[in-house]
């Protein structure tokens, strides 16, 4: 057992640098944020005082919070469904051997590989043309039509969701393609021999085998949607026509300087993230399937 003790100490020693780094860049800021959420830290007042759960109480009592939460959840559900469907379709196409594969791969990969800041401006101009042309008339009419049918803010929602799917779909495709390539081809050969239709193959073979990758894609999409700030911010020109939790927290903290409240808003995502992780881990790695 003496040997074991030395090994354990060595193991901790080897982990130490990584631990220090994690504590410095993750644990400390998070702890600071948790503390701040219990204070009235703000640019509007001197000093900061412990206010207990006041920030959380204010947040939960704010109809805007519930609105933002609902929008965030719908945004997540809509974009994730679309990205998974689109990404899986593209990945399955790319997995087939073809002479044009390299070209298609490039086309699929570009939206994701291109700098986000640039593409988002392109989308912004496409949806809100900076110059008056006949196109801007079309864009304007479209916006008006969508907003008047689905309610104000719908156009913003649609455009942000479209951008997210366009950009995230290609990432999901690349991601799932890697997953497909990691699955032994014999499993698909066997499916070709035994299944009666492409749908059976997808449902009984491809999707179950891709499950770990799909779960990770859902989780990435989840965190992306909930923390989404940059895309929403830039596409809506910094106006809160489209409140997701991430944007509103940014608005509160950076624009209005109410750090305490902003911290509470950000942290409201933690229970949801934890729940999502739990569900996804259960889904793609059930305890019963672990090696006996």
């Amino acid at each position: 057992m003496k040997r074991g003790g030395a090994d354990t100490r060595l193991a901790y020693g080897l982990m130490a640098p990584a631990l220090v780094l994690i504590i410095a860049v993750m644990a400390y800021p998070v702890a600071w944020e948790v503390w701040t959420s219990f204070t009235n830290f703000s640019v509007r007042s001197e000093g900061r005082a412990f206010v207990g759960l006041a920030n959380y109480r204010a947040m939960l009592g704010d109809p805007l919070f519930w609105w933002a939460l609902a929008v965030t959840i719908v945004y997540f559900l809509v974009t994730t469904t679309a990205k998974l469907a689109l990404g899986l379709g593209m990945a399955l196409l790319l997995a087939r051997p073809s002479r044009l594969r390299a070209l298609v791969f490039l086309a699929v990969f570009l939206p994701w590989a291109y700098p986000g800041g640039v593409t988002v401006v392109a989308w912004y101009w496409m949806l809100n043309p900076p110059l008056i042309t006949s196109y801007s008339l079309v864009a304007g009419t479209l916006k008006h039509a969508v907003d008047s049918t689905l309610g104000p803010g719908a156009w913003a929602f649609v455009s942000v969701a479209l951008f997210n799917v366009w950009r995230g779909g290609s990432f999901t495709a690349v991601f799932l393609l890697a997953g497909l390539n990691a699955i032994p081809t014999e499993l698909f050969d066997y499916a070709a021999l035994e299944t009666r239709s492409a749908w059976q193959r997808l449902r009984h073979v491809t999707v179950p085998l891709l499950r770990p990758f799909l779960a990770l894609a859902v989780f990435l999409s989840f965190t992306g949607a909930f923390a989404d700030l940059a895309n929403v911010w830039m596409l809506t020109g910094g106006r809160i026509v489209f409140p997701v939790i991430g944007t509103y927290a940014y608005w509160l903290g950076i624009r209005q300087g109410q750090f305490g409240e902003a911290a509470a808003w950000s942290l409201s995502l933690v229970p949801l993230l934890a729940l999502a992780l739990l569900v996804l881990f259960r889904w793609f790695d059930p305890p019963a399937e672990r090696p006996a």
Partner: protein
Amino acid sequence: MAQVLMKDLNKKYDEVHAVKDVNLHIRDKEFIVLVGPSGCGKTTTLRMLAGLEEITAGEIHIGDRLVNDLPPKDRDIAMVFQNYALYPHMTVYDNMAFGLKMRKFPRAEIEQRVRDAAQLLGIQELLKRKPRQLSGGQRQRVAVGRAIVRHPQVFLFDEPLSNLDAKLRVQMRVELKKLHNRLETTAVYVTHDQVEAMTLGDRVVVMKDGWIQQVGEPLELYAHPVNKFVAGFIGSPAMNFADVTINDTGGVVTAESQGLRLQVPPAKAGALRAYKGQSVAFGVRPEDVHIATGADPAGLTFDAVVEVVEPLGSEILLDVRAGSSTTTIVARVEPTVRSKVKDSIKLAVNPERLHFFDPKTEQAI
């Protein structure tokens, strides 16, 4: 159950001509083995039969149907893969039932067939497990069971035993043979292991570079290889080869090389006379070389020095150098022989079992 017919079958990839003019008639209920070194086209041939590879040219018939344009699912075949191809997300039962479920068989019949196959293979206890909780041998059984439940016209096996350890491989080999005797379903089996080929096949197809070299019953291939490749590929330890020069002195045809001077038996002498003065490849199997006794005529013996002794228990392998030459010959001798390294001994060959091959075409003479 069905016969399988391949006519002028070809497979070309961009650069590689993988299968060349394969013509093969596999009889109903036959167990046929395709064997050859890697890259010989055996697996490609099997995959074309399964429908997993497109046919470049030629025809494949299963039963009385031309299947060239039939998708794999409609060919009524069941395949066992090298890596078993079990679905990790399904239990053994679900894996075995998969093909039948997809084909919408009634639940009771699926259950019956899976239970029967599981009993046949001795895996009833494993039905509720997931593949990753099984050993290699157990997975292999599940993969075979999954093929059996389908009651297909033809079984296809793609190197199914090559991931098992040596002992298990021998055991599964026997089981597969018993299984085939019992089910009597036509089977096409691909392997690179000539021992598997010889022990399992009713007939064996030896392939190399996309060509069929020889088709025949195991012992026929062993005794009468049509060319040097088949002669060297079938049999373990492999056939001994030496380059010899053919001489004809007064009607006595001899094959000579440094340290070796053998009188060619009359049966072969006629054909070999045409090679007079030329070099040909001479081959003799290790068991056809024995310690010379007084009864061996002088023209069939040669002197040798023992270089390595490999006592295997039931027999001893002697690696010897013939006379002063660099030619090494392996002799398979009785376990009672007491030869040591560096011993000088006299060996004799069995005249009925000498092989000669054309130096250019490598065809048997």
